[in-house]
């Protein structure tokens, strides 16, 4: 996880951070590096969205493909479609190719967030196969909806990659971190243990217009144990091992996904929709 502090609206400067991240990964024999949500562009883009958007044929995409010849990577960027919709997207690059694109499906538009004003909503959530196993990408708020994690598990993914730009907010007495960091750590741990999956969370740091991003990137294993964890608020590069043996052991001990009754869920969901 490359816990970086991107410059708001400066794609060239952020591409340099990506290059440095990939170099760090290569020098540490890391196979896959995950950059935070919208870290190629910065987060509070507002009217800048069309100015920093890339298309599949853009030179930036070629640059990222080239970087992925060395190390697989997940980039967080604004992706423009042929019919000029702008998506908050995370793109998985491997072996010089785009392997998967996830367009954020849950765009927070409340409180301090205004994503649906600027972005089109993604309409798909798919697991995909890579050199590093079957993965699902969920961007930030996507992960706050338990349905996405449930679908990821049913779709056969053993690992969720979650790039985020999660802002710190809420000060509570007795807590070491802000309230939002506390909540993230609670749900990622619960998801990892409940679904018997690895959760790889890559969060950014820095400030935009006074709003800080808390960092604290890390990996949780299927037992809910911390594999690795970056510090809070400061830039970091942190790596850990995602071992399929651990997933196998957890799922052998508690084969909940094996026992999951998809037909029951579908029947009841259809009834709920009908009613």
């Amino acid at each position, binding site marked *: 996880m490359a816990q970086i502090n991107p410059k708001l609206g400066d794609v060239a400067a952020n591409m340099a951070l990506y290059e440095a991240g990939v170099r760090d990964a290569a020098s540490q024999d890391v196979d896959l590096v995950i950059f935070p949500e919208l870290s190629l562009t910065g987060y509070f883009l507002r009217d800048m969205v069309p100015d920093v958007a890339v298309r599949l044929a853009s030179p930036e995409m070629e640059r990222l493909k080239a970087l992925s010849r060395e190390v697989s990577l997940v980039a967080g960027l604004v992706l423009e479609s042929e019919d000029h919709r702008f998506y908050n997207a995370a793109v998985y690059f491997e072996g010089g190719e785009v392997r998967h694109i996830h367009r954020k499906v849950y765009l927070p538009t409340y409180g301090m967030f205004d994503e649906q004003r600027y972005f089109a909503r993604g309409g798909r959530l798919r697991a995909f196969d890579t050199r590093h196993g079957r993965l699902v990408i969920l961007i930030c708020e996507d992960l706050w909806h338990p349905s996405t994690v449930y679908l990821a598990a049913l779709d056969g993914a053993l690992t969720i990659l979650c790039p985020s730009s999660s802002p710190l907010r809420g*000060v509570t007495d007795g807590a070491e971190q*802000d309230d939002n960091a506390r909540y993230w750590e609670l749900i990622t741990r619960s998801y990892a243990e409940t679904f018997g999956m690895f959760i790889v969370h890559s969060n950014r740091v820095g400030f935009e217009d006074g709003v800080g991003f808390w960092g604290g990137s890390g990996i949780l294993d299927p037992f809910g144990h911390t594999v690795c964890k970056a510090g809070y608020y400061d830039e970091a590069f942190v790596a850990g091992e995602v071992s399929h043996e651990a997933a196998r052991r957890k799922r052998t001990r508690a084969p909940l996904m094996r026992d999951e009754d998809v037909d029951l869920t579908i029947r009841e969901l259809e009834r709920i929709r009908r009613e």
Partner: protein
Amino acid sequence: MIPTNVSLMRRILVAFIRNEVRKVGLERVVVGLSGGVDSSLSAMLAAEALGPDQVLGIMMPYRTSSAESLEHARLVVEKSGIRSATIEITAQIDAYFEVFPDADPKRRGNKMARERMTILYDHSARWDALVAGTSNKTELLLGYGTLHGDMASALNPLGDLYKTQVWALGEAVGVPEVVIDKKPSADLWEGQTDEAELGFSYREVDELLYLMVDQRYGRTELIAAGFTADFVDDIARRIMTSQFKRRLPVIAKVSHRTIDRDFRYSRDWGK
């Protein structure tokens, strides 16, 4: 109860100052020192973020300002090791009010606050620095400040902290005890205190504001929580009528893209 997690607030605010100052290519801030807890805390947080050498505290007394205020500001300078300057504002204020001798204390106070603002901004240009603000959340919500005067700044580390939190954090970062313990005052006339002028104590109003603003309690819930209906209504009205102080001037919409309505960019655009 308002949370006063001083170690977390301190960490956030120091990182905020460091980040927001450096990203515009600068290393320094200037801050107006009144001798009160807000400006003392703002200066000391800036010193921690950027180093005391990169912070200039300016004391700007008027001839009727209390000697104690100046003495307290000097204590803060000594304790924090920041740079300092004293610039009297008496001559220019008196020259102006010679023309308007009937001006009431409020007009005079506002004029002084705005005079101090122009000095801070001039020194920020002179010294390649940003002006650090000192308005806390209580003042901002109540509108208890001078628009374009003490409310003006480039970055404000205290704007999301209630006075109760400012006191707690001030104690943690080492603001001199005498500064924390004294009664808050805008020092506009002899013996003035904020709480006498406002008609309630900061601790009392902070508890109400915290529930009303942060926790979004409704009127009925606030009264059930023990606040009188009159107090709740008075504070709600103060917040509403001072909203203009927390916004840019209104712009008449003519085009398809009007600044801050449908021309929307973050302040840190490109930074």
